[in-house]
């Protein structure tokens, strides 16, 4: 029995191993200091939807908010095998998660989804909070966060395994439901990677991406300022791994205290 799935996909800051200054003089994120990437947990959500489709059919729609040229994630989603894409005409950087959730919810309502809605739980980085929870509230749908595995999905219900502190929980929810997907799924990514040439072709390919016009929604939370965190300055010492004498003095010193 097939279930239709909507997946929210986002392009977000790539905050791994940043070097140098991240802020400009006005306290904004320097665009050239921080790249962007496909939100890795959204990628997990997308993979979860595609695996469900491979196994039992159903239509997968990817939705992303952004400018017409700013939604490469939708092209990527098409490449990976979704059936349809929708762009929500809203600026994710100008809205908080609550306002953004309203915009996404509007598109989902218009598309008439009564099935599964998947989204990454997301690493908190320049994201104010968890979009999935706001989205579930906006749709008055059930929600499960930190989902690592979808164990079962029928048109009426889903059974999902979620990660909790020190273990897991298996939760059953009636549909429609928003599942916020965690990090565990995508160990091997069968639909990626590919050559730079293929990536370029994907970027240049003409695709018609339908847009959903989001009504103006006011944000309730604002960024009140950003400040650079001073580098941690610690005294570091290279210790020769070959030298037992050095290793010994290291252990003695480190255990002795200051």
């Amino acid at each position, binding site marked *: 029995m097939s279930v239709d799935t909507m997946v929210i996909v986002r392009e977000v800051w790539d905050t791994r191993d940043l070097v140098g200054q991240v802020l400009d003089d006005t306290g904004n994120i320097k665009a050239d200091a921080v790249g962007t990437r496909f939100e890795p947990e959204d990628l997990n959500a997308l993979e979860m939807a595609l695996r469900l489709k491979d196994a039992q059919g159903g239509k997968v729609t990817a939705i992303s908010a952004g400018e017409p040229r700013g939604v490469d994630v939708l092209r990527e989603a098409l490449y990976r095998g979704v059936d349809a894409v929708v762009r929500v005409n809203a600026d994710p950087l100008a809205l908080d998660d609550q306002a953004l959730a309203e915009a996404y919810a509007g598109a989902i309502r218009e598309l008439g989804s009564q099935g599964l809605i998947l989204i990454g739980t997301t690493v908190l980085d320049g994201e104010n909070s968890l979009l999935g929870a*706001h989205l579930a509230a906006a749709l008055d749908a059930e929600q499960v966060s*930190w989902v690592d595995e979808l164990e079962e999905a029928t048109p009426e219900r889903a059974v999902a395994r979620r990660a909790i502190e020190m273990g897991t929980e*298996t939760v059953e929810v009636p549909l429609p439901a928003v599942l916020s997907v965690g990090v565990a799924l995508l160990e091997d990514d069968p639909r990626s990677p590919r050559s730079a040439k293929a990536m370029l072709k994907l970027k240049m390919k003409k695709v018609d991406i339908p847009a959903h016009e989001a009504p103006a929604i006011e944000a309730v*939370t604002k960024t009140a300022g950003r400040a650079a965190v001073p580098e941690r300055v610690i005294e570091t010492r290279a210790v020769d791994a070959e030298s037992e004498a050095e290793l010994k003095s290291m252990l003695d010193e480190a255990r002795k205290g200051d």
Partner: protein
Amino acid sequence: MADISVFIEVDDGVLNDISLQCLGAARALADGGVVRCLAAGAGASGIAADLFARGADEVKVFDDSRAAAYTTKPYAKAVIAWLNEAPPAVALFGATTIGNDLAPSVAARLKTPCVLSADGVEAADGGYVARRVEFDRKVQTAYAPEKEGLFIVSLHDGAAETPAADASRTGEAVPLSVELDDSDFAARVLKRDVAKKTVNLKDAKIIVAAGAGVGNAEGLAVVQQLADALGAEVGATRAVVDAGWLAADHQIGQTGATVRPDLYIACGISGAVQHRVGMLDARKIIAINTDANAPIFKVAHYQVVGDLKVVIPKLIKVLAA
């Protein structure tokens, strides 16, 4: 002076320590105002005395047998009913898998601002700001409400001190009155599989932590031997826990424990930011890694570039000598 409300997580009669830290933060933030707690979960009424002793002025209890296991809707409804009884300036939640699921759900339903996993919240310019370190720990962002009104914030583990108990502070807990019907319990927890806590990383003086670099059970055994030789506890990265080499209670980092031992020995750990946030306040850090460029070396006081299967036996040998 302001009223602050704190959501207190109770699991089978056990109080979550992060919730207590939130209570401590609330007491400071209230600055003479009223601090209200909602103790929620199975066995919640049993911990009320402890909450009063640690700084609560009022305690409500939500212990509905149908909601013994957390699901979003009934908890969100209960919290909203509680917040509406006596609207506070700020409502604090622990940034746990419950708190971070619940806080935005409540905020979205109340259309009120929300910040998750903050490092702290403070009064500023007649309102409040919540701060969070982001962008690979390079940027601290301050978030504030657009308008006056309730501000919902979750605090991560270690954001505040656990307040000490004062036995002279007492009070009487009152059950929360909230109407829940069957439709609120449409989501059901079918199964729960949680590791028993076998290690106490928080109080450990020395932690020897294993990363994916241990490679296999044999590599892990070497780490265990070093821990034994030092009288240390064994910690782990998520990679090691996900691989099933150690139980989840060993995990250190963003989704594990936050530790501050005197000595932390990182063995075969790359030092991803999600791991570093859990250990970088250790007084001394030794890192052993084959990759001289591993990010863990940036926070390590002692950098040992080498194979842990060779280095650790040497360490054990010099300790025995």
